[in-house]
């Protein structure tokens, strides 16, 4: 391989070189963008759960009491027993479990959505600690309440007021703006979980349809090994029965409905098509270029270049062109990724995870988590694309070089 010859050939045959580079770069850019988009949708699907510090949420649907009075469970979140929680905690791949207790409390003058939270567990709604807008977060061992800021404003609740929930009074120690934090596991009033458990255990209406002990819960927030999430989801359904609702990033991905979000198979198929297109473009343009140079190859052979010398020269030219096409494709993909990152995506929150009673105003509305699509080109995808370009260049140059090097100089050098 002669570097001087290679660079001059690429430099002076600008049009030919540019056509080859442009053609292949489009295929490479397509490959990178398709995969980046697919990854962005996957990443977006993690967001609703990540916002509450979990990888999986678990709840179980059941019946609502005939009469809605006092504390009751939403029909989508009934009792999960302590023993069931312990079984889930022991599953291989589960790194931590947070719990919560969601209640609808129908008092004579007001309906509350109450969420009992574990104050010290970093998995689950205690993540709201960072969303306190006034006052302070709940403290250990104290029967006190946090109120959603918008709800407090609507009903004129002030800091240090005392609110009555199911005939029990709780001082309001702070306001939170949950909309800053999460779309799931949000409520009007947040209580220490033990207080919420006591309210649930003492409710006859609730006990009549969903027996509840003071150590039971109805929401689970689970941190798990990423690669085991799908398997864990089915194991949890096995423990909790067919009424269990297990939300995972995959289930959110399905709700997104985009082609990129639908399946790995689509991305794989599209990537394969992009690679095939890239290879065909590279092959076609290079084949045309090399065919134009048949006479030149004849000269090289006549003056003493061996087949191997010819192949390595053509291969090096092809590899360099494809490498440059890979770099250009990567640059195009980076620009496209930047543009696509301004695209907004609405992730629908399943109705089972909506805390508001559907029969109350706004309760039946579809909730969405809206976010900018986190499109970026990871370095390993960029490296793969460049490596692929070089491999395509090597293969194309090698194959075409081997073919053209077989020509007989006497055939192409006969004078015109």
């Amino acid at each position, binding site marked *: 391989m002669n570097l001087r010859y290679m660079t001059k050939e690429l430099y002076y045959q600008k049009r030919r070189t540019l056509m080859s580079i442009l053609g292949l770069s489009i295929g490479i850019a397509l490959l990178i963008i398709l995969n980046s988009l697919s990854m962005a949708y996957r990443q977006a699907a993690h967001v609703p759960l990540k916002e509450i510090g979990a990888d999986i949420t678990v709840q179980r649907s059941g019946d609502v009491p005939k009469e809605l009075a006092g504390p009751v469970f939403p029909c989508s979140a009934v009792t999960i027993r302590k023993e069931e929680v312990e079984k889930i905690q022991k599953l291989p791949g589960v790194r931590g479990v947070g719990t919560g207790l969601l209640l609808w409390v129908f008092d004579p003058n007001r309906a509350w959505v109450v969420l009992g939270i574990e104050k010290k567990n970093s998995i689950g709604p205690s993540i709201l600690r960072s969303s306190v807008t006034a006052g302070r977060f709940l403290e250990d061992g104290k029967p006190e309440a946090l109120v959603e800021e918008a709800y407090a404003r609507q009903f004129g609740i002030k800091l240090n007021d005392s609110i009555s929930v199911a005939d029990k009074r709780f001082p309001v120690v702070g306001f939170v703006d949950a909309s800053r934090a999460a779309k799931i596991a949000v409520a009007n009033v947040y209580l220490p979980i033990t207080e919420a458990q006591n309210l649930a255990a003492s409710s006859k209406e609730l006990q009549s349809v969903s027996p509840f002990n003071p150590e039971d819960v109805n929401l689970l927030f689970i941190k798990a090994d990423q690669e085991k999430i799908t398997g864990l989801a089915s194991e949890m359904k096995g423990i909790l029965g067919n009424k269990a609702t297990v939300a995972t990033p995959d289930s959110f991905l399905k709700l997104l409905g985009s082609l990129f979000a639908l399946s790995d198979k689509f991305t794989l198929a599209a990537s394969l098509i992009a690679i095939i297109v890239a290879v065909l473009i590279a092959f076609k343009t290079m084949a045309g270029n090399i065919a134009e140079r048949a006479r030149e190859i004849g000269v090289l052979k*006549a*003056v*003493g*270049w061996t087949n191997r010398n010819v192949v390595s020269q053509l291969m090096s030219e092809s590899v360099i062109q494809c490498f440059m096409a890979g770099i250009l494709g990567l640059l195009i993909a980076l620009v496209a990724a930047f543009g696509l990152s301004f695209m907004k995506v609405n992730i629908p929150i399943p109705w089972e995870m909506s805390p508001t009673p559907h029969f109350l105003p706004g309760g039946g509305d579809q909730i969405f988590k809206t976010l900018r699509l986190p499109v970026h080109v990871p370095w390993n995808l960029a490296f793969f694309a460049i490596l692929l370009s070089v491999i395509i260049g090597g293969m194309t140059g090698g194959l075409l070089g081997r073919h053209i090097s077989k020509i*007989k100089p006497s055939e192409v050098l006969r*004078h015109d």
Partner: protein
Amino acid sequence: MTESTILSGTNLSKKYDTLEVVKGVSLAVNAGEFVCLVGKSGCGKTTLLSLLSGLEKPTSGKVNLDGRDITASSEDELALFRRDNVGFIFQSFNLIPTLSAWENVALPLFPIKMTSEERRKRATELLGKMELGPRIEHLPSALSGGEKQRVAIARALINNPKIIFADEPTGNLDSSTGEAIMDILNRLHKEKGVAILMVTHEDELAKTANRLIRMKDGEIMS
């Protein structure tokens, strides 16, 4: 074949399907001899030149070049043999359009392990002898026909060949430029003692050669 014979072809034939282009030709060229192969267009001169130089394999017969039976060699062996022992000059110059004059001259040296400076030095020296010193960095597109052919001659000489094969070297040049090229070839033959086998259809040019071989319909007439 005598001790001074550099090239010999024995009973050489070349068939393309049923068409026999060269018919049982035998000839020899001595070291330092200038031989002209003359004949009308299509009589098989260029094919015979290709057979004798190892660019093409004969259907039958043998070629012995510098004591080696080249008809038994593989394609790569032949390429290496040509690189070390043979120079070519073509009618249409066959310079690489993207390479400068000196790079074209150094083309046979590219696959050989040596520094770029060494290649350039050898090519520049030869171009100087061809009176192309100021043109070494020019691309072929910036050279006249005569200059291109002088670059091609320099390329043929870069490896100090024992024999040069020239196929209608003046065919694309006007008469005065053609004469100048013939002067260079004659000078090379006399000063360097390099053997030359030249194909031409012009009797006038062939007069300067030591020996003239006439071809007709694939056979040697005289």
